[in-house]
Every structure is written in C-alpha cells, then in structure tokens.
C-alpha cells in the first residue's frame, strides 16, 4: 500500500516539477500554470504523507532508518518546508528548484528501495531514529540555503551581466536569497550538531565507542565544521552575499556526499 502511495507521490512531484520548470522562465502572469504546479506539489505531498504513515504503522517505528527511508523523509520535509515558505513568503520560484530536487530524491529513494539490505537488529531503536531524523532535518535546512544559493548566483549573474529577461523578473531579490541562505544555515547547524551528538551516543551503546573516524564520520564532522565557519564568517568576515551563496552551494554538496557518496564510493555498507 505504501508503495502505491509512494509512486503516486513520485508521479505528482514529477508533473509538478515539469510545470514549475515551464513556469520559471515564462513571461507575464501565468496564474493557471502556477496553480497547477502548486496543486501537483500539494497532491504529491498528500500521497507522500499517506505513504509515510502507512509505512510507519507497518514498521511500528518512524521510517527513517534505511537510506531509502531517509531519502524519502528528506524530500517529504523539503516539500513541507517549501509549501510553508510559499504560503508565508510567496516565493513561488523556489518551487522550480525545490520540487525537481525533491523528485530526484524520491526517485533515488525508489532505486534504493530494491537494494535496501535489512537493518542490523542491534541498530534498531530510538537512538538511531533520533540520529537519522535530526540529520535529515539538518540536511533539509542546508538544502534550503543551497537552493537559495543557486537562486542568488543566477540572479547575481543576471544583474551583473545586465540581462533583464523573464528569469530576472521572476527570481527574488538578492537580499531575500541571502536571508534564506542565512536562515537555512542557522536552522541546519543546531539540528546537525544534535544529530551528530545523538549519533555518537548511540554508537557508544552499540559499538562501545563514541567515534571511530570512519570516512563517513570524518566527512560529517568536516561538513559540520564547514558550516560552523560559515556561520561565524558571515558575521565576522563578511562571508555573506555572493561568497555566502557559493559556500551554501558547496556545503550542501558536501552534505550529500557524506549522506550517500561515501557509502557508494568506498563500497562500505555500514550505513550509519
């Protein structure tokens, strides 16, 4: 049942993503197109919620402990945050970036689903759920600054090169993108900090030591340090505006790397 809902959600996201990408460079007022894109996103979100709920009840625990589930939960939260942003701030253009990314993430989740190995029973428990949830929520926050960073860089280039087309008109002002970057980092940093702490404590109970310096742990710590410096640098060193945008993009790519890249590259199958 959850698979059906999940696939419906994936289809809805795909349609919404395409609609948003058509909407983005368009001219004038195209309310119907936008309404369709938002409607598709909302429908996808409802199916996705249903899929998560069904899975939750099947599992008896919050479904966030496999890579598939984490990716799915990531896009669910991303869509939720986008919808809230859109509702509050009416930055519809964000959808053209967030919804395709959410679709890619559920698509990746769908691919991972078939290969998902059953979880080591020792790992099950509240500690792991807490750790992965926090890490995913942190990643969503960083993702928002990543998307805002992309919008910033595009808008900045258009402004510098003096191309005043439709895209320029649609994208939000630089200051709005910059504020979104800052908020994303400000929100993501404490979540990731707590996530790493809960992970270390969990590891202490399962394996007997807090930290092992595996590649994944190392990269995670580096990413955490990167965002710490970014946060401090923003206020003390002027790492804002253009540089802030590039850093936000780089930071999130590193997050992605630490989430899945390392596992794939090093062929290491201990997911956590």
């Amino acid at each position, binding site marked *: 049942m959850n698979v059906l809902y999940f696939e419906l959600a994936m289809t809805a996201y795909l349609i919404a993503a395409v609609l948003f990408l058509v909407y983005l460079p368009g001219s004038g007022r195209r309310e119907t197109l936008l309404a369709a894109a938002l409607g598709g996103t909302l429908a996808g979100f409802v199916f996705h919620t249903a899929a998560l709920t069904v899975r939750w009840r099947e599992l008896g625990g919050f479904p966030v402990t496999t890579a598939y589930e984490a990716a799915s939960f990531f896009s669910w939260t991303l869509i939720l945050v986008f919808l809230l942003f859109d509702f509050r701030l009416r930055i519809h253009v964000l959808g053209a970036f967030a919804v395709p990314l959410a679709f890619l993430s559920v698509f990746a989740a769908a691919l991972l689903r078939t290969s998902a190995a059953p979880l080591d029973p020792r790992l099950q428990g509240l500690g792991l759920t807490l750790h992965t949830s926090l890490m995913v929520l942190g990643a969503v926050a960083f993702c928002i600054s990543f998307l805002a960073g992309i919008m910033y860089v595009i808008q900045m280039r258009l402004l510098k090169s003096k191309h005043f087309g439709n895209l320029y008109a649609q994208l939000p002002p630089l200051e709005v993108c910059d504020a979104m970057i800052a908020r994303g980092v400000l929100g993501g940093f404490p979540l990731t900090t707590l996530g790493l702490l809960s992970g270390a404590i969990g590891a202490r109970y399962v394996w007997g030591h807090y930290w092992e310096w595996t590649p994944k742990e190392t990269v995670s710590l580096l990413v955490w340090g990167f965002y710490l410096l970014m946060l401090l640098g923003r206020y003390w060193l*002027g790492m804002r505006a253009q540089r802030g945008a590039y850093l936000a993009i780089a930071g999130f790519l590193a997050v992605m790397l630490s989430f899945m890249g390392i596992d794939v590259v090093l062929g290491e199958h201990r997911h956590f």
Partner: protein
Amino acid sequence: MQLIVVGLSHKTAPVEVRERLALGAEALPEACRQLTGDGAVREAMVLSTCNRVEVYAVADTAEDGFSGISEFFARRAGDTTPAHLLPHLYHYPGNDAIGHMFRVASSLDSMVLGEPQILGQFKDAFEAALSCRSSGMVLNKVVKKAISVAKRVRTETAVAQSAVSVSYAAVELALKVFSDVSRERVMLLGAGEMAELALRHLISAGVRDVVISTRTLENAQSLATRLSAEIGTSSRKPGEADAEPVTVRAVPFDAFPTELVETDIVICSTGAPDYVIGRDLMTRTIRARKHRPMFLIDISVPRNIAPDVNRVNDVYLYDIDDLQQVVESNLAERREEARKAERIVDEEVDSTARWLRTLDVVPTITALREHADAIARSEAERVLGKLPNLSEKERELVRGLAASIINKLLHNPLTSLRREAQDRDSQEMVEITRKLFALPERQAPTETPADAPPDSPVGNAADSPPDPLPDPLPRSASRGRPR
C-alpha cells in the same frame, strides 16, 4: 441616439494644437455645460490631459454630434471654422466610440503604454461631467463600464507592470537587490535633475535615509532643506501618519568616500568630467561593509563611476544605457500584454453595445405599454359602467381581466423587441411596431433635448439621476439575453 467621441491626441495632433484646446480641471464643468447647452448633444463629458482633448457625447445622430463638437473645438481654438482643426480631429461613432473610450481609460492609447495617471484623469473628467449634470444615463453607464474595464485590464494583464521611465527603472533594479529599501541608506552624489527624480522615486518606494553630497556644500544643503520640507508636507497622507520621517542630510564632498561605507544605494550625477568613484575605492568600501551589497546608479554623461566597478563582488553598477535597456524590455513586454488587453476591451465593447442598442427600443416599449394600459383601463371602465351591481371585489376582477389580456398579448412583442435590439439595429422593428399599433410618431431625431418630454426614459441630462445606473428597460418581463 448615438454615443460618439470627437477629439485629438498625441497621435493626431502636435503639441501646438493640443495646447490651444487643453482645458484645466476648473474649466471642465463649464465646457460640459456649453456642449449640452448648445443642444447638439444630450450628454457630454470632456477629457483633457496633456496628450489628449476629447469630448464623449450622446447625440441623436452621429452627424449632428460631430458637427456640434467640432464647432465647440473650433471656438475654443479661436477659429471661426473647424476646417483648420479637422485634419487633427478623429470622430468615432457607436462601437468605435465605446472601444476608444475603453482603450483610453485602460491606458492602451496612451503615449506611454499602460501609464497609470490616465485613469485618474478619466475619473476626474467624469466627476466634472457629473457635477454639472451633463452626464446622463448613457454616459454614466458607459463611463463606469470603462473604469471597470480599465481595472480589469490592470489586474488581468501585465500592461501596467514594470518601470517605463529611466528614473523609475532605477527603483525597479534596486528592488532586485534589496527586498525592502526602507532600511537602506541612499546617497545622492551631485544634483542632476534625473538623479533627483530617481531619488524621489526611491523615497516614494520607502527610502527613509538620504545623504546628499555635491561639490559645493551649500547646494547640497539647500537641496536637503528643500527635499525635507517637501517630503514633510507631502508624505503626510492620511493613514500614513505613523510612517517614519525621512531624514535628509548634506555632507561635504570630500567626506563622501567615508560615508559610502554606510550607504547602500548611490545615485551619481555630478558634472565632473571624469570618474569620481573608482574600482579601488569600491573594493575598500565593500570590504569595510563586510560585503553587504551595494547598488550604484550612474546617470551622468560623461560617466562618473568607473565601469569596472561592476566587477567588484557584491557591487552592482548601472549606467544610463543599462537603465534605458530595462525600459526598452519593459515596454516590449507591455506591448505584448496590450494585445491581451485589446481582447478584453473587444469583449466588453460587445456587451456594452448590446446594452446601448436596447435603449433605442425603450421609448417604443414605453409607448406601447402606455397605449395598451390606456385601452385596458378605458374598456374595463366602460364595462363596469354597464354593470352597476358588482361588488368591489368583482370590479377588481374585471379590471384585472382587462389588464391580464393586455399583458399576455403584449408579452411576446415586447420580448422580441428587446431581443431584436440586443442583436442588431432595431430601427425597422421599431417602425413596424409603431405602425402596427398606431403609436404616435417618435420624437424626430433632429429635435433638441430641451424639447424631449421630461418623462422620456432616455431623458435629458438634467433629469437623470447622476449616480445610480437606472434600468433602461422598465417593468421588464424577461431582461437580459434570451436563454
């Protein structure tokens, strides 16, 4: 009865001609009175802006109206004959007049497509016509329709969106860097006229903190005093009383580089022959600002800000050509949107024209009803005279019977008259009806409104209530479009 327009605009007449005809706001009611007083037209409204002078009127025939208004124009221009003005005047009757009015109100006929002032001027013209009661039922309805069409065009198309003047383009660009200019400080460097205009636009967009610096401090100070005095008095609109006051400061010219650090927007227009702001200065400034972005506008020719300043990170520099480019692309977009707007206008003209045509049959319908009612009443009374023993209730029944026969009989003719009128010229139908029922001859179209019967449903201007839109179809059985 016809709605007509006679006028001239920037498209047909040079300013030398337009200025001779232009009327100030205070002269409008008098002009309307003159027009309707002449008897050439029943209703009139005069619209006068710097780009157009037009008379919208309701006349019995288009030709009479045209010549009457043309003479009015000739008198205003001080000529004895309209011949000299004629090449500049356009005359539109009927649907073309309605369409023209809708396009003017929607700013589709403006020199700057989509400019917002025209609707206000249009409303003022209507107010003036109302105040001297020269606008009657037809104009009231069509003008109000024009205002609502203009609003529809503005909300449904982007024809009035985006900046189309160089000084306003600066504000539009600034709003792509800053989300809310009310927190930003603006520096005016030099005091060129266009720079001052851009500053004023920024202030009305919300800027509250202004610094002025010119080569001679006195000039900056006097401009600062003048600006704060003006803003102090003009920005106190009702409801905005809580708005933060605008502070305007003058600083010596050699102090402006240090002031730059706290400045977010610079408008530069000094008369200097070379660069006043160079790349080094901006690199230092932006570093000192911890890379909070800056927005520079160089309106001066020769330019006063080195072009390579734009290469400094987080500094956005625009010169006059860049602003011009913004204006061009916005205008192109407006032209695109104007096509959508034209479709809206066409739609609305159709429905208004249909309504207007039904007015032509109103006198006939009224006459027919009155004729029939008179017959019903007299016949009923004749019968009642022969039946003296009836109770009051039975007498009522007899009267009711007569009235209901008349109603049943008239229902179809009246309905088809109205329907006919909506869809095509109803002249023939009216004539047939009048002949069939032997109704008295209509008011000859050449008669002046003063001779029109006071109870005529079309009415002359003075008899029509200025405000509500009266229903032109009295006691309608099946109003509106059939089915």
